[in-house]
């Protein structure tokens, strides 16, 4: 449903991403990992229409996009700059639905349902500044869910919450998105997270970012924070992605994985 063709972006004379090619199928959860500053946010912002890429095209359902595409939601890394402090959680979640032509009652009901899904039904009347960071990020996710986008972009959504909340939110995302059948593009710099959450992990190189690896994640059935992370397949995949992120090429030999530096 989403296709990037030779997507490039240059800030002034600084090349942030270089000819990124990527195809994402309907309902897939794709994680993008890469070292800091490799252009992950730039990539996401190009897809979301927040910047106009200097080269290449973004195709959504085969059509090139210009501006912010419809049916797309973003969960930003910095929730404090994305939730409006002058509105309650409910109002924040319901606000984007005004565009959907729903009356106030239906909007509130939809927003409430989304807040319930993220376990914040009790905090609907709270303001963002009355909530912890994890709660705010949940509201952010609820807003995206209520909007029912076909494509959900997440930019290091769990980057600034503690480890335990992070695990909860990872599971939450997986659960509700499977439920809605959404396509997800999740950006992270955490190798572990990418393997745990993704159906596929795409690795970007150091700046200028370009795709250096695209690995399918084949892990058995409902994922679980403890058991899944213990699986041999998980550990192996994590190591492989880790090497790619660090700019090394894995190559197989009879003794398992060997590494050579590029």
């Amino acid at each position: 449903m989403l296709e990037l063709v030779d997507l490039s972006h240059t800030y002034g004379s600084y090349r942030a991403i270089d000819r990124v090619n990527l195809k994402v199928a309907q309902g897939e959860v794709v994680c993008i990992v890469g070292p800091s500053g490799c252009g992950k946010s730039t990539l996401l912002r190009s897809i979301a229409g927040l910047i106009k890429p200097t080269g290449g095209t973004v195709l959504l359902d085969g059509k090139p996009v210009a501006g912010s595409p419809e049916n797309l939601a973003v969960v930003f890394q910095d929730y404090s700059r994305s939730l409006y402090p002058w509105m309650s959680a409910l109002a924040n979640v319901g606000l984007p639905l005004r565009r959907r032509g729903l009356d106030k009652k239906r909007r509130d009901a939809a927003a409430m349902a989304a807040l319930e899904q993220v376990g914040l039904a009790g905090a609907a009347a709270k303001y963002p500044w009355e909530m912890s960071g994890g709660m705010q990020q949940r509201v952010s996710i609820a807003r995206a869910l209520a909007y029912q986008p076909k494509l959900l972009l997440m930019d290091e959504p769990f980057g600034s919450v503690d480890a335990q909340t992070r695990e909860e939110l990872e599971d939450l995302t997986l659960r509700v998105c499977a439920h809605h059948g959404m396509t997800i593009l999740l950006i992270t710099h955490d190798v572990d997270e990418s393997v745990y959450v993704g159906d596929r992990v795409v690795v970007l190189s150091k700046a200028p970012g370009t795709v250096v690896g695209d690995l399918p994640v084949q892990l058995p059935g409902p994922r679980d924070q403890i058991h899944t992370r213990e699986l041999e397949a998980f550990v192996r995949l994590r190591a492989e992605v880790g090497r790619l992120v660090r700019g090394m090429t894995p190559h197989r030999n009879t003794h398992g994985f060997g590494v050579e530096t590029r």
Partner: protein
Amino acid sequence: MRRATSGVLRFWIVPVTLVLWELLTRVTESPYFPPPSRIATQFYDMWLSGPASQLLLTESALDTFGPSLGRLLAGWTIAGVLGIALGVALGRIRGLAEYTDPVLQFLRALPPPLLVPIFFVLFKIGTPTQLAVIVFGVIWPVLVNTTDGVRAVDKGFLETARVFQFSRYDILRRVILPSAMPKIFAGLRLSLSLALILMVVSELVGSNSGIGYSLLYAQQSYDYTGVWAHIVLLGVLGLLFNALFLVAEGRVLSWHANARRNV
């Protein structure tokens, strides 16, 4: 308990000053400086000895305050609406501020009281002219603060609005304006105190009603205590407006105070 006493202690200077002032004026017996007790009595007799149904205000108070406060509030409201509208335009429309900056700086530097005689020659003496003076004089703090506030809207807030495809109206009404509101309120508060000043000026220079006119009348009939009573009245009004405004601001902007406290 501690708070109560500290509250009393905080204001001890007020009764002390009043007593000293009373003693001093009684000793010197200058006609220009009547003792505060006499000012208070006259204040009460003129304006506050009315029936309870009128909040104790006398007929004379209603006749005097009514036109003044009406003009003040009307002028301030018009200036507020215009100032916010123009400020939003200047802050959001690229280039507009640059083209208009010198003209606005110049207009802002004109002392508003000097416009009173000009407007009086151009139009008739009367409420519309006085309103025009007040609006012209007090619009600037709102305009400047709105422009600043609207420019400073966090980029993150706007990007969220873009991603979720808010309508232009929603972006303005639910993102830009609320975000700029703390600054806008600061401007409105300053404007309110300026409006009081300009109300008095316009009534002193040419008017046949209102507090300024009544003050001039007291002066011309050598009623010095009356003159003092008017000055006290204007001070009280200034305090009152400020206090009311702060209460309103506290309600509207509770999110702002709290959001700031928490980070």
